[in-house]
């Protein structure tokens, strides 16, 4: 079973849900893989604190133009959708950070003046903690191309009874790449107008991908009614509600996990785990 944890809005509690779920699943002796796909700022390690076992770089192919061969015909600039290769004046400029590594410029070059060179953009890391296999990707500073890094991370992830994919916030390409291939997605939301607004966007995105989803309302209280109504109208079930509790926020601020802090939260995550096991 591969579960994506996504949200739409940032800061609703994706990592809280993903890490605590991983912890209780390992406590229940399931084989668990936790993938931190928020490669711009992977923070699952703050809570799970894995022992690092390996690191490896992620490289992407980017074009290099041999100006001795190039006759400045401009074909490469025509095919590039991202202005990553620009024939101008007597030069061909390459902007590696805009390159999506599609290889189109190399294919259309009539003189084979373009070769591809690897460019390091991120580092993958793997580790282990208390029966949880931990994997994350981390983009190098200044890099923006997260989908290929997420793809590389998913490619090295081992199989397990439960694979938890902690997705980045938002509803754009990185989220799509993270949750693609998941059996089900948990959308973590908070009962605020922003949380509600972005939850609806996330429901649309996950729906378009043809993946079933349920909702976790984090910091839930009396103000959760609008969220519950949205779920009712959409026919989407609420998998769990996590109450707004100061002791949990305090533990979080120390980098401690809810299930280790509060027996009630432990029970709630165990119930969520049982529910997930019921999906397969």
């Amino acid at each position, binding site marked *: 079973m591969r579960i994506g944890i996504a949200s739409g809005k940032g800061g609703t509690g994706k990592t809280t849900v993903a890490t605590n779920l991983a912890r209780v699943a390992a406590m229940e002796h399931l084989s668990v893989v936790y993938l931190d796909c928020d490669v711009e700022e992977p923070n699952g390690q703050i809570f799970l604190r894995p022992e690092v076992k390996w690191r490896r770089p992620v490289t992407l192919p980017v074009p290099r133009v041999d100006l001795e061969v190039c*006759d*400045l015909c401009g074909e490469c600039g025509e095919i590039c959708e*991202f*202005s*990553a290769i*620009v024939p*101008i*004046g*007597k*030069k061909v*400029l390459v*902007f590696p950070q*805009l390159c999506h590594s599609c290889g189109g410029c190399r294919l259309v070059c009539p003189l084979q003046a373009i070769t591809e060179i690897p460019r390091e953009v991120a580092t993958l890391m793997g580790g282990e903690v208390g029966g949880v296999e931990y994997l994350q990707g981390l983009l190098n500073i200044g890099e923006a191309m997260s989908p290929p890094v997420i793809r590389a991370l998913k490619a090295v992830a081992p199989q397990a009874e439960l694979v938890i994919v902690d997705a980045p916030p938002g509803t754009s390409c990185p989220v799509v790449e993270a949750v693609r291939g998941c059996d089900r997605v948990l959308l973590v939301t908070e009962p605020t107008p922003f949380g509600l607004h972005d939850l609806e966007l996330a429901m649309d995105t996950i729906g378009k991908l043809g993946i079933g989803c349920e909702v976790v309302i984090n910091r839930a209280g009396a103000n959760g009614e609008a969220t519950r109504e949205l779920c009712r109208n959409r026919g989407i079930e609420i998998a769990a509600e996590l109450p707004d509790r100061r002791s949990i926020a305090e533990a979080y601020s120390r980098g401690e996990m809810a299930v280790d802090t509060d027996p009630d939260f432990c029970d709630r995550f165990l119930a969520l785990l049982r529910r997930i096991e019921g999906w397969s």
Partner: protein
Amino acid sequence: MARTPDGAGGKNTMKIAVSSTGPSLDAAMDERFGRCSCFLIVSPEGTEVDPVNNPCATQGHGAGIQAARLVAERGVSVVLTGRCGPNASDTLAAAGVSVVTGCGGTVREALEKYSADHASS
């Protein structure tokens, strides 16, 4: 074979592109280069004015690069703007277009200031 636009021949043919919020000389300048609403391509004296819409304004990425290509293809030799990002700067430099950043006010004021600075140097 060289397709380099060569508009910088004499002073009379020199073209200046100013990033602008509107199509007239009295429009406020747009401080942004790549995402400005339009470019006014003018002679330094402001006698000939050619407003060019900037289709890059709403582009998701690479706007500065495409805007740089746009002005280079029009034979511009100097750009007056507020700010210009590194990608746009590199592209303009490759095309042999010089850039003056930090300009503001109306397009006319920016041109007058440029002409005055140019005359005194």
